């Protein structure tokens, strides 16, 4: 099947972020003093476990970022026509989940729909029964499928652990001292290994079950809830990361400039961020998003597909979130720069006649990097949570875009149904909890490792 790759705006920004991340990793790996705090992060079991969870989320998000459009069979005037539906590699991988839609709600692992329907049976009588789901397996197979899936997952996880544990040890020389260190470090890593195996087992079980059953049930229009939850991950990650593309340059340049140059530069920058931060952020976001909606709705010809329209709205939302959230970091950086510029080495550089630009880039910037890094990882979880709230309020992502917020928004009245429909809400909240908890724990570890105020022994 032929296809054409599609790069949406948010995809491009994600690739940009990835490139920046790769560049930073490459640079840090060459500098031992920069690597040191990361080694401290790596020593923390909690940090490594949450990093593992985060990278799984990241993997799903990345696969979901590679978009394409399939070519339609019938060609018009010899030209290949592409379907208006934008798919991603992730959609292709989980095709059964995406295509197995039922009529309406069904409970997790259910064999039947959740409500009775009138069905005419073989004798011609109308009976009220729970109709069987279209896409579901045999009732008796659940256990065996779960067990085989979990075993396969454990096996794969074990293989992965073995691969990783044997990889660095090969480079170490075979002294007794080194052996003891290796044994100690492997003893320390046991929790990580166990968690990896548990996660691998769970994933294996879910994959093996999800190919046949609806593991987390289906929603009102019969879409698989597991599929929706997995698709929401990308939206959450994009809100949490792309926003930093706006926050970072603004906060960094303005904050450092205000602190270093003082005088009227400082006054102007302080004025700008006081004005912005004096508006309650939800209201400012709401106002900006409302205006963006007007622009998008009055220019329908800007977008060739519905996905690109929803995507542009997502990018604008990141932009708006960034515009409202850079002020805090900017204030921190200004304060730190004010402190730094009075230190001896800066004054020495000034008296040697080093240019301001050079002092800023060589002496000030590297010394505020830890603040930036801590602020960025701390902001991430807040942004993921904010997306759900904003989408609920109606100023979040496009209603057609799958996200935790739209899932919750769509499901909030289902608790009042009889029988109660709880699975869509539960799935959205649990996925969000895992993502945000992992991000919070990782952020704490990063802060502990990078904050110079922490006294380490």
């Amino acid at each position, binding site marked *: 099947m032929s296809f054409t790759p599609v790069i949406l705006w948010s995809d491009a920004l994600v690739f940009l972020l990835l490139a920046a991340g790769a560049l930073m990793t490459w640079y840090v790996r060459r500098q031992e003093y920069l690597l040191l705090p990361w080694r401290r992060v790596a020593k923390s079991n909690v940090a490594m476990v949450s990093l593992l969870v985060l990278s799984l989320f990241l993997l799903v998000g990345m696969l979901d970022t590679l978009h394409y459009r399939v070519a339609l069979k019938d060609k018009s005037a010899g030209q290949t026509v592409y379907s208006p539906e934008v798919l991603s590699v992730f959609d292709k991988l989980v095709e059964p989940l995406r295509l197995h839609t039922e009529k309406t709600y069904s409970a997790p692992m259910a064999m039947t729909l959740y409500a009775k329907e009138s069905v005419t049976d073989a004798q011609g009588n109308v009976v009220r029964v729970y109709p069987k789901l279209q896409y579901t397996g045999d009732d008796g197979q659940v256990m065996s499928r779960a067990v085989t899936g979990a075993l396969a997952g454990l096996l794969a996880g074990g293989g992965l652990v073995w691969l990783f544990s044997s990889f660095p040890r090969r480079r170490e020389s075979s002294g007794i001292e080194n052996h003891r260190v290796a044994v100690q470090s492997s003893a320390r890593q046991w929790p990580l290994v166990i968690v990896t195996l548990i996660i691998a087992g769970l994933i294996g079980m879910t994959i093996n079950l999800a190919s046949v059953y609806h593991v987390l049930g289906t929603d009102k229009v019969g879409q698989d809830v597991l599929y929706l939850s997995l698709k929401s991950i990308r939206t959450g990650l994009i809100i949490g990361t792309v926003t930093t593309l706006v926050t970072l340059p603004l906060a960094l340049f303005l904050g450092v400039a205000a602190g270093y140059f003082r005088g009227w530069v400082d006054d102007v920058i302080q*004025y*700008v961020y*006081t*004005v*912005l931060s*004096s*508006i*309650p952020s*939800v*209201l*400012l976001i*709401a*106002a*900006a998003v*409302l*205006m963006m*909606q*007007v*622009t998008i*709705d*009055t220019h*329908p010809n800007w977008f060739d597909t519905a996905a690109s329209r929803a995507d542009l709205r997502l990018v604008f939302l990141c932009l708006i979130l960034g515009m409202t959230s850079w002020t805090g970091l900017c204030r921190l950086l200004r304060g730190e720069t004010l402190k730094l510029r009075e230190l001896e080495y800066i004054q020495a550089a000034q008296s040697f006649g080093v240019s301001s630009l050079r002092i800023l880039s060589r002496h000030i910037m590297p010394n505020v990097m830890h603040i930036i890094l801590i602020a960025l990882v701390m902001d991430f*979880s807040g942004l993921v*949570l904010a997306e*759900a*709230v904003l989408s*609920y*309020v*109606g*100023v979040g992502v496009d209603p057609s875009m799958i996200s*935790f917020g739209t899932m*919750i928004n769509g499901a*909030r009245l289902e*608790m*009042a149904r009889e029988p109660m429909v709880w699975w869509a*809400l539960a799935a959205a*909240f649990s996925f*969000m*909890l895992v993502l*945000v*908890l992992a991000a*919070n*724990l990782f952020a*704490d570890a990063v802060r502990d490792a990078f904050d110079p105020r922490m006294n380490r022994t």
Partner: protein
Amino acid sequence: MIAYLIRRILYAIPILIGVNLLTFALFFVVNTPDDMARMQLGVKRVTPEAIEKWKQQHGYDKPLLINKMADSSAKLTDTIFWQKSASMFVLDFGFSDDGRSISREIVTRMGPSMAIALPTFLIGLIFYVSFALLMTLFRATALDIAGVALCVVLMSVSGLFYIIGGQFLISKLWHLVPISGYAGGADGFKFVVLPVVIGVIGGIGSSSRWYRTIFLEEIGKDYVRTARAKGLSELSVLFSHVLKNAMIPILTGVVVVIPLLFMGSLLTESFFGIPGLGSYTIDAINAQDFSVVRAMVFLGSLLYIVGLILTDISYTLVDPRVRLQ
């Protein structure tokens, strides 16, 4: 101090002008009133006459900044900027799309908002500070670690979950209080309990952890060691020394939000059907009533600036070393 306050109030004026200009640019320059009319009337098949009529009804049929057609002083006053934006400085917010006076709505809706927000704020503050003090008292023990872990988990849960879960558990399953609604006076108590409880629980994670860090920073200082050397018990060290000295950082974060309590909370009020300013804002957002949103933005920043000034005053109350000049 009076001179200082006057200076602070004068300093607030340029900031409010900035907010005003920003909202003006956002609401009238990014999209012209024509775009807004088209949006409100439906994008397709809308006649120029209908747009003109809509603009006239809402008072948008004037030039943005300078009216060249009008006489001397009306050149400035007979414009959208003067009538829609500048008038907010005298708290004249104009009319919402359904023709009601926004100022009157704000006054009547402030009460219900305060009925929820004030108890949440006070109970929450007392609870968070006590919990943080408890963790500080048992610092570096299993209890402290469990407390911090609980905080991290609680702050990772979405605020929407507390509301939906709380409504389900307390109102639907246990039938203790009504799910939503509001009544004035003593009848209102049963409607207020649940939003307040949920509001307090929702803030435990981040607030208690934040106060704990403040207390831990204070407890490592020299005066604490001196107090202990005098033979004071750990409890009286905590309450009469650490808590007092931690007041400045606590007040910095707390006093600012007091005036903003008037605005209520968007989420809580819309879930619990409280007729306060928060649900007013949400309704305006959903109905795309731009004049209400604009009024709320201005009111919000006005209250925030009042909060900043109150913070400065509160410093002088708790710390005799601070003198405002």
